């Protein structure tokens, strides 16, 4: 019997749930995180939460459809958005409004999407980020192709792809890890472990001690990070992204977080989830801990933070107005984007539809 391979999985946290850093602010600065960065982190998390709250309200009043909230996951999602370079490519799931907003997507675009209008994924800032992706984990395969493209073109770009704890059970997730390993692709896989896949708790999703260890099956390293600690998330993401960018291959980060609300507006978590568990999870709220840090370390004043909230509110309200004022797409939009050029049989169907709608009038 001889040992032929050995692996370890590490966990890291920098800003704990009571708002204390386990390194000095100077050390943080030397790692490239300024006070301004911390304030920006907070602003983006606050914006995400404000947007999220509004989106749920809009759903309740029938202005948008089913919405998947990112409540509780603002730290990791914002860290991704703030750590990536603009020319990198983000490959989301569906719970990633926070990241999208950091990346430059417009709020009214996201509302259009959740409001049932495809134009929401035609980003105005027009980068190459992928659209929301609903079939769980299928986006992981896209990240392989995107990163392969970077490699082939010798571009120093990175693909960052996210999925949930549930997503780690899907074949596409593993096939992608394995392929990323084979070609040593510049991909950072971020598993946002919010402890639940709808009603299925993390413990029933996998017998693995950590989800980070799934990376071992791809032949590269994985680590856990406190996903509610935006400082730690940023630091670990920075390293992983830099490694990927400089040709050191893929990495997996399991961000440990918690879904602080229903799965989506169509779900009722009280059917399957303990109130106490939820209450405990709120103690680890990512916003509160950064708020505490900013105040305690006098990086921001209460007034400044209130001001931020006001700004966020204004930004959200303006976007909602813009969304609500957007005129509907014509019926022809159903047909126009199926092919670059519409085949005649499809044109015939469109003609028939328009005719039938006209005759109804």
């Amino acid at each position, binding site marked *: 019997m001889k040992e032929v391979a050995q692996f370890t999985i590490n966990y890291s946290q920098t800003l704990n749930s009571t708002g204390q850093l386990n390194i000095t602010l100077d050390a943080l600065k030397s790692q490239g995180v300024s006070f301004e960065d911390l304030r920006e982190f907070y602003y983006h998390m606050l914006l995400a939460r404000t947007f999220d709250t509004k989106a749920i309200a809009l759903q309740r009043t029938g202005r948008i*459809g089913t919405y998947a909230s990112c409540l509780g996951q603002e730290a990791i999602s914002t860290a991704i958005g703030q750590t990536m370079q603009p020319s990198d490519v983000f490959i989301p799931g569906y719970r990633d409004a926070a990241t999208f907003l950091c990346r430059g997507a417009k709020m009214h675009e996201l509302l259009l999407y959740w409001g*049932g209008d*495809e134009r929401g994924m035609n980003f105005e800032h027009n980068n190459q980020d992928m659209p929301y992706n609903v*079939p769980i984990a299928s986006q992981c395969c896209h990240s392989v192709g995107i990163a392969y493209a970077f490699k082939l073109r010798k571009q120093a770009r990175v693909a960052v792809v996210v999925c949930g704890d549930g997503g780690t059970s899907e074949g596409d997730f593993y096939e992608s890890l394995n392929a990323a390993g084979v070609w040593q692709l510049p991909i950072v896989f971020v598993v946002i472990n919010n402890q639940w896949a709808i009603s299925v708790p993390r413990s029933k*999703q996998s017998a693995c001690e950590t989800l980070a260890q799934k990376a071992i099956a791809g032949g590269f390293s994985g680590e856990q990070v406190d996903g509610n600690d935006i400082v730690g998330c940023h630091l670990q993401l920075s390293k992983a992204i830099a490694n990927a960018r400089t040709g050191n291959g893929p990495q997996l980060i399991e961000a440990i977080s918690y879904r602080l609300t229903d799965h989506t507006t169509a779900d009722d978590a009280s059917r399957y989830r303990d109130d106490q568990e939820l209450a405990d999870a709120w103690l680890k709220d990512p916003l509160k801990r950064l708020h505490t840090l900013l105040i305690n370390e006098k990086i921001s004043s209460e007034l400044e933070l209130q001001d931020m909230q006001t700004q966020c509110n204004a930004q959200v309200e303006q976007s909602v107005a813009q969304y609500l004022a957007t005129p*509907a797409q014509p*019926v022809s939009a159903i047909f126009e984007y199926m092919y670059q050029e519409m085949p005649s049989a499809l044109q015939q*169907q469109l003609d028939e539809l328009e005719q039938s709608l006209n005759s109804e009038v």
Partner: protein
Amino acid sequence: MSSPVAELTMIEAVNTALQHEMSVDENILVLGEDVGANGGVFRATDNLQQRFGELRVIDTPLAESLISGMAIGLAVQGFKPVAEIQFMGFIYTAFDQFICHASRMRNRTRGRLSCPMVLRAPFGGGIHAPEHHSESTEAIFAHVPGIRVVIPSSPARAYGLLLAAMRNPDPVVFLEPKRIYRAQSELVIDDGQALPLDVCFTLRQGSDLTLISWGAMLQETLQAAQSLAQQGIDAEVIDLATIKPIDKLTILESVEKTGRCVIVCEAAKTGAVAAEISAIIAEEGLTSLLAPIIRVSGHDTVMPLFKLEQYYMPSVAQIITAAKKVMEF
């Protein structure tokens, strides 16, 4: 002992059928995502885990190919798994196991092993759901040899057909039109009576033309028939119900009587089940035809996000227009 009778919605009828069969046949297992404590995202499996335990009502990891393939393993071992795919839009990764193995195990082993399993999934549009939650791709399954595809269109038929599916010795895909999960209630007698899996249901007798549909679109089809009746056109309405194998006889006899046929289906037009029905008539009932066979169906487009969804779904008006067109031919 009298059987319980209740006003049930379709989703309740599905649940009632599952409860019935689980209580009389201990080999029935239910598995899928969120089928346990949550009772399924539509509550089809509500209360099952409480009643029958975690071993028989299984929350699986989030992996559709696993669900489908695991059901095969259970079935060859003599269980009767009823596997749920949460939405038909996520059934494609389960398809490989189904077409490669479930549908072939009996043939491959010359009957030594078989695959009595049911793959349930809610399907169809019209509920303003997100992308991938409105699929009607039953045609893909209808092309697979060795299986049955069943679609109920009312609570009572959901109850009877699901019982039949669970008792069937071969794999069955059971697609539930989620738009009408709660659209209406009707009296369902929970007496364990299954419905046959090889006949259409004629929902309305008529002599002028034959309207064929299945699942949720029968709502619009029946409305159209009613409206046509007011205009003096007497439509026969057939609920296909068993999409595979198709009950050709009922269809051909009806068209022989009426001479005219309109097929209503929600799926993208090209290659939908409506095409097969039309082809059967053109092959075996052509001489009955007094007019072209019109398909009122979804477009050859993706189901749009919900703001434009209504323009994808076939409408009562479109069915009436088609019916009049074949009548005036």
